[in-house]
């Protein structure tokens, strides 16, 4: 807690100072990212290039999308372990809608995203109405989604070869002539929407409020149950979106993938400064967290560090990054 000492009179001014400090902190979270990037730029001649930067951004898309959605759940004091396999299930559903049923793109893609919302809705119901601890509720969903993805796809990938334009969602270039994959635009768009919702709407406000003190929120006359369901369902849309993005990138829905993505996404959220005990966090932070992981992975591979050492270094760098970030926050 930063102790801002002011007499009551100066309080209005203090408010501004507090806000400014908040901004500063977020900028400083960038610092880790910048330092790491700078290091790699010096250490390897191949790191600092337009192509490599787009490659890093591109590789952030799926984890980033999942992380953005789950930021809401975590700020609200919950956790979602089903995002990884849920994503695989949504990818399969996208295949079912577009390939098996043959819906047009403009219907099938939203349907797959909404299916993610449905997964979230069920999670929300289990957590908010049945009062099952989020860890268990979403762990169960993780298993169910994993199984269903295999069942619905007959344990085989579904290929989107005949769905014109599907892979363009990810790998196409909206801006003609510029090599900038659409997937990155989708990620940024999703982040923008999420950030606006989180900071500017009632949904976002109640997300913070519930995570900060669920009981007090309920005592304030807010239907916490309903809003919690809404938060999980909304976060679920990002599971769906991630399912579309991964299958569009691969050109196929891989039913067996997804396990382990949840930990990576949650790690991105937490590295980005969102507290697992709820009440605080931001979308920008999450994006930075996801980028830190991507940059580290990319940089270590580019430097041709032997792979068994990569994880060791990755772990240490994450520790140091989070630690220095905390020190800095304390000092401001």
């Amino acid at each position: 807690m930063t102790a801002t000492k002011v007499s009551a009179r100066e309080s209005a001014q203090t408010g501004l100072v507090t806000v400014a400090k908040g901004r500063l902190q977020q900028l400083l979270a960038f610092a880790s990212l910048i330092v790491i990037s700078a290091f790699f730029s010096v250490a390897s001649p191949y790191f600092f290039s337009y192509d490599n930067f787009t490659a890093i951004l591109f590789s952030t898309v799926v984890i980033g999308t999942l992380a953005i959605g789950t930021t809401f759940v975590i700020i609200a004091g919950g956790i979602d372990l089903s995002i990884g396999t849920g994503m695989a299930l949504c990818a399969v559903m996208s295949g079912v809608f577009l390939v098996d049923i043959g819906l047009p793109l403009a219907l099938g893609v939203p349907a797959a995203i909404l299916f993610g919302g449905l997964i979230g809705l069920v999670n929300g119901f289990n957590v908010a109405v049945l009062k099952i601890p989020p860890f268990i509720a979403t762990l169960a969903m993780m298993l169910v989604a994993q199984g269903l993805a295999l069942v619905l796809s007959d344990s085989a990938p579904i290929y989107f070869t005949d769905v014109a334009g599907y892979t363009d969602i990810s790998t196409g270039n909206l801006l003609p002539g510029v090599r900038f994959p659409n997937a990155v635009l989708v990620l940024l768009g999703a982040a923008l929407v999420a950030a606006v919702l989180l900071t500017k709407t009632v949904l976002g406000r109640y997300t913070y409020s519930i995570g900060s003190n669920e009981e007090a929120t309920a005592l304030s006359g807010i239907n916490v149950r309903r809003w919690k369901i809404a938060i999980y369902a909304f976060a679920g849309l990002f599971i769906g979106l991630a399912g579309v993005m991964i299958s569009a990138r691969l050109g196929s829905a891989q039913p067996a993938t997804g396990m382990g993505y949840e930990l990576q996404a949650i790690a991105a959220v937490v590295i980005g400064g969102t507290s697992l005990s709820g009440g605080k966090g931001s979308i920008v932070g999450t994006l930075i967290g996801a980028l830190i992981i991507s940059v580290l992975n990319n940089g270590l591979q580019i430097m041709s560090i032997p792979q068994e050492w990569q994880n060791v270094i990755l772990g240490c760098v994450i520790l140091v990054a989070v630690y220095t970030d905390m020190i800095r926050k304390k000092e401001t």
Partner: protein
Amino acid sequence: ACGSAGDGAGGGGEPYVAIVSKGFQHQFWQAVKKGAEQEASKRGARVTFVGPATEQEVEEQLNMLTNALAKQPDALGFAALDSKAAAPLLQQAQSQDVPVIAFDSGVDSGIPVTTVATDNKAAAAEAAKHLAEELGGKGKVALVVHDQTSLSGVDRRDGFVEWMEQNAPGITVLPAQYGGGDQLESANITKSIISANPDLDGIYASNEGSAIGVIKGVQESGASGVTVVGFDSGQAQIDAIRNGQMLGAVTQNPIGMGERLVDAALKAIEGQRLPETVDTGFYWYDKSNIDDEKIQAVLYQ
């Protein structure tokens, strides 16, 4: 839609073969499963097929093997992730008079009545040979391997690397990178390799998931002049070979493996003598022979 009624009553004379595989979700294992089920229904037998989610879950495989034995099968098909670990359980199978058929890779023990397998190392060497030919014996190649500790990962890596060392001195082989068989991760790794090695000439991918990732990675990075060879089959690789993104791939014959496995099991139940090994072979396929009947028969989509 599940839990077929009247299960459990193993009687009725229908022989029951329990199969414990190295994996379940990957296409390769699904193809083995398909072959086994086809053969079983043809021969009036019943099979169950289970396998752990990744090839690292040795302990989980032992639990599956234990549970399979508890069901008192008439024969057991087993692809060991670590053959020494399973020794006590195989002993148990022997004492229960359950014949064991090893498949995919050998089991370090005298218990299996036969081994239905291919030589992963030789198959990988075949891929190396074709890649070296295509590159004219010189250049720089990278490997994206699905696993660094499992037998299949190690054999498919070493088979490739050793062949290159012995037969293509002009080719530099970069250290292998491991993507866990995950398409996305393999794609990201591929892009990093290409960034770090602008002069790269070829990439070898050691299983289906790695291959899909490598194809995507090469495609996304826009690099031209990188020759890709792969392993296993599946729609993505078949398409990539047809449209020239991939030179070719080695495939084993997983469906055939499943069929021979069940065939061997049924013969063992009847008490027939079996050869020590049943080689299910491997095949190199590329644009030129992909439509051959013989190749088509071993590919899965």
